[in-house]
């Protein structure tokens, strides 16, 4: 039996086409049917214009695209042996900006998408607080997200769609008062996380070793774990269990894991396939069903995102959970929340390290216009996983701009006999509700996927 279902409440819309046998999903297609063509639009534009175009690829992870563009352009300077000097202050402000965006995205994803859906699987009235729009927790989560993103607006000007970074640094020059305001917003976020999400102080949380540590607590994570165990989500949603992280920062290490061995990554082995994807201005073939392409490393599929980051960076709680439950929905969602908690903690520290007396921006000695022909590449860790930008300039104008988003790793179609990551995770689910939640555990974003 074949069914077609719509996945709403992601950014944009996706279609999930499933084949069923004996009440189990035996084959699944994830279809993204919206396309704008950013890579075509960026062609023939001056290089710096990309700083304003690429953040608009996504209304949720614009910071990640902005940082990727700024760094790809800086990589062009490196490629011609004229590396730019970026001050610590500028580096910090970029990382803080991206962290805050991820914090905001993780809070929203959990409270707006994951909890309302998983709570619906239980008849227990105490979970009504997670109901969309009406539920108290839903509202508190939305509020906490809007408050935390203000810490970014303080020095980035607005959110979504800020463009305060440029090759050589950042444009903004926060004052001491701005730094204090940012700290205050982060303190509020931390307070929310301790009170509502964990139900315990963050110092205690850092000592947690396993999900049993949540037993006596009354936070949303405890509710989530109970609901997971009741609905078999500690066994569902498993994919290849191979993980990749393309870049590193204060919290994340780069690398890949296949059967427990951590290895380094080489960006030149990343490639994008479009065998099963639609193409611009070409008639559709029978096997093509989505605008999403497929990202591969050394011709193999890898999962990217918070779970991969937690494993490669060796974060204790998730590492232990992973030993027991592998790459299940339970582990994947908990990894994202664990990352949220660490990010808030680390971002507070990073804000403290900003030395306002340093320069925000040191003008490059060479203009990109003088460089002519060159290629730059960059990778950053976005909310949903590793993001790669590759830009080629010819006569100082963008000849080619390639964007490989995290969702293309996780949600793209499979190639040949190999299923895509999320596709494989869904196969075997015994109800549509569960298939939805497995899909959601990857934090689906249709606009980034297709761009």
């Amino acid at each position: 039996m074949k069914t077609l279902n719509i996945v709403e409440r992601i950014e944009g819309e996706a279609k999930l086409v499933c084949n069923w046998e004996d009440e189990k999903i035996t084959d699944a297609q994830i279809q993204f049917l919206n396309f704008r063509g950013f890579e075509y639009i960026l062609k023939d534009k001056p290089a710096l214009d990309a700083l304003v175009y690429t953040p608009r690829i996504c209304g949720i992870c614009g910071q990640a695209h902005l940082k990727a563009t700024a760094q790809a352009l800086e990589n062009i300077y490196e490629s011609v042996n004229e590396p730019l000097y970026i001050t610590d202050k500028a580096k910090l402000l970029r990382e803080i900006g991206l962290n805050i965006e991820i914090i905001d995205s993780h809070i929203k994803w959990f409270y707006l998408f994951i909890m309302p859906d998983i709570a619906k699987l239980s008849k227990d009235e105490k979970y009504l607080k997670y109901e969309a729009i009406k539920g108290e927790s839903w509202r508190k989560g939305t509020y906490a997200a809007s408050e935390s993103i203000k810490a970014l607006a303080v020095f980035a000007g607005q959110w979504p769609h800020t463009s305060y970074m440029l090759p050589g640094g950042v444009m903004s020059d926060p004052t001491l008062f701005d730094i204090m305001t940012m700290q205050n917003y982060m303190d509020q976020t931390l307070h929310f996380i301790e009170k509502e999400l964990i139900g315990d102080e963050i110092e205690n949380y850092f000592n947690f070793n396993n999900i049993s540590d949540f037993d006596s607590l009354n936070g949303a994570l405890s509710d989530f774990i109970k609901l997971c165990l009741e609905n078999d989500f500690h066994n569902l949603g498993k994919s290849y269990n191979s993980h990749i992280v393309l870049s590193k920062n204060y919290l994340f290490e780069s690398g890949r894991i296949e059967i427990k061995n951590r290895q380094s990554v080489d960006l030149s082995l990343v490639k994008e396939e479009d065998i099963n994807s639609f193409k611009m201005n070409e008639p559709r073939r029978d096997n093509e069903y989505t605008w999403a392409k497929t990202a591969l490393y050394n011709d193999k599929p890898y999962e990217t995102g918070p779970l991969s980051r937690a494993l490669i960076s060796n974060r204790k709680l998730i590492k232990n959970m992973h030993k027991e439950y592998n790459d299940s929905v339970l582990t994947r969602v908990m990894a994202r929340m664990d990352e949220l908690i660490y990010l808030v903690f680390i971002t507070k520290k990073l804000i403290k390290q900003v030395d306002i007396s340093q320069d925000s921006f040191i003008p490059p000695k060479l203009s990109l216009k003088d460089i002519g022909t060159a290629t730059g590449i960059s990778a950053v860790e976005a909310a949903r996983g590793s993001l790669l930008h590759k830009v080629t300039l010819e006569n100082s104008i963008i000849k080619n701009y390639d964007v490989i988003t995290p969702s293309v790793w996780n949600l793209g179609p499979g190639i040949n006999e190999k299923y895509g990551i999320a596709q494989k995770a869904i196969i075997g689910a015994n109800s549509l509700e569960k298939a939805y939640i497995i899909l959601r555990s990857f934090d689906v974003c249709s606009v980034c996927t297709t761009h």
Partner: protein
Amino acid sequence: MVDSQDMVKKVFTQKSARIDTNKGENYYNNLFEKAKQRLSTLKKQAPLKDIDMVDVIETEGINRRDFMKWVSGTTATLMLPPMFEPLVAEATELMNRVPVVWIELQDCAGNSEALLRSASPTVDDLLFDVLSLEFHETLQAAAGHDADRQLEDAVEHFKGQYLLFVEGAIPMANNGMYGTIGASGETFHEHLMRMSKDAAAVIAVGTCATFGGIPAAAPNPTGAVGVMDLVKGKPLINIPACPANPANMVGVILHYILTGQVPELDSLLRPKFAFGYRIHDNCERRAHFDAGEFVEEFGDDGAKNNWCLYKVGCKGPMTFNNCSIIRYNEGTNWPVGVGRGCIGCSEPDFWDKYAYQRPMAGANIKAPTGGVEKTVDEFGLGLLTATAVGIGVHAVASAVAGKKSEHNEEE
């Protein structure tokens, strides 16, 4: 299609956005009476949602004074005198009489994200509790086929009454194959036409929905157009900007509740209360423009001292929007506040015309004349011309981009 896009451009270069901030006592007295009557009629209607704003304020522990502060700010945003404050407060309480349907087309969800960050009292209290949001893909409770059904039900049940908010452009190339929606796979174009047919008014939110936005940037690979190119014979309001300011979305709804009508619009169908003046007119760095103090390069002393960003590409003098006053993220800040300059995101074709790297003076943009332009004093205007000469040199090298707009300028 092409014709109407060109029309938009023509309109932009002609007299537009003339605004009277004070329309005289008679006008406001009449409007006040009209609004009072409208609100008492609305009050008699059964609420669509059984939630009372006063209750919400009380149970959420929002200070009445904070609420009144918000009311007075919103009244000013709508360019109404303080005597309207009690009516605006009352209108807020009657938000649950107006059904709203929100659809997303070729978008990035940025405007929905911005809406989630609307001014206090927090949007979940104000909009989601009180406003009868009948459908919003991202925020609603329903998912899958239920969501599909909920949309159909809302459109059927509130025939002729609902406000349709549209986020995102509409791809018209190759029979609309670049965007389809729902189980039936109808194109964004078909979907928009069906949803707007029975709407009381259509509100295009964000520059993609209003003027085609970034998907329509050269070479416009998907043939993207804005709502105004397709929906005819219906009250249509454009709230451009990337993202649109949620204060203006709430403003439009309140204005509709208050008067039963769309607010006064400029020639690009933008509400004059929000787009009646230029960013430049109320910019915090304006004094530096007038004094001839410019940031010459990011990171220089001028940048550190918050001087005018005109020479590093700020499009404020050509951009109509209230963000220099309202700001973003509940008034936290705005781009010019952090030294990055305005990119002109509420103007048609800003991607091609106003591109970031090109200082405005070199981009060959004709200034809208009349109206607001007169508020720029002689000195400022003189300087605008003088600066243009200096900047023109830098602009030549970057003029290669945006072939589309260049082509049009040559005509």
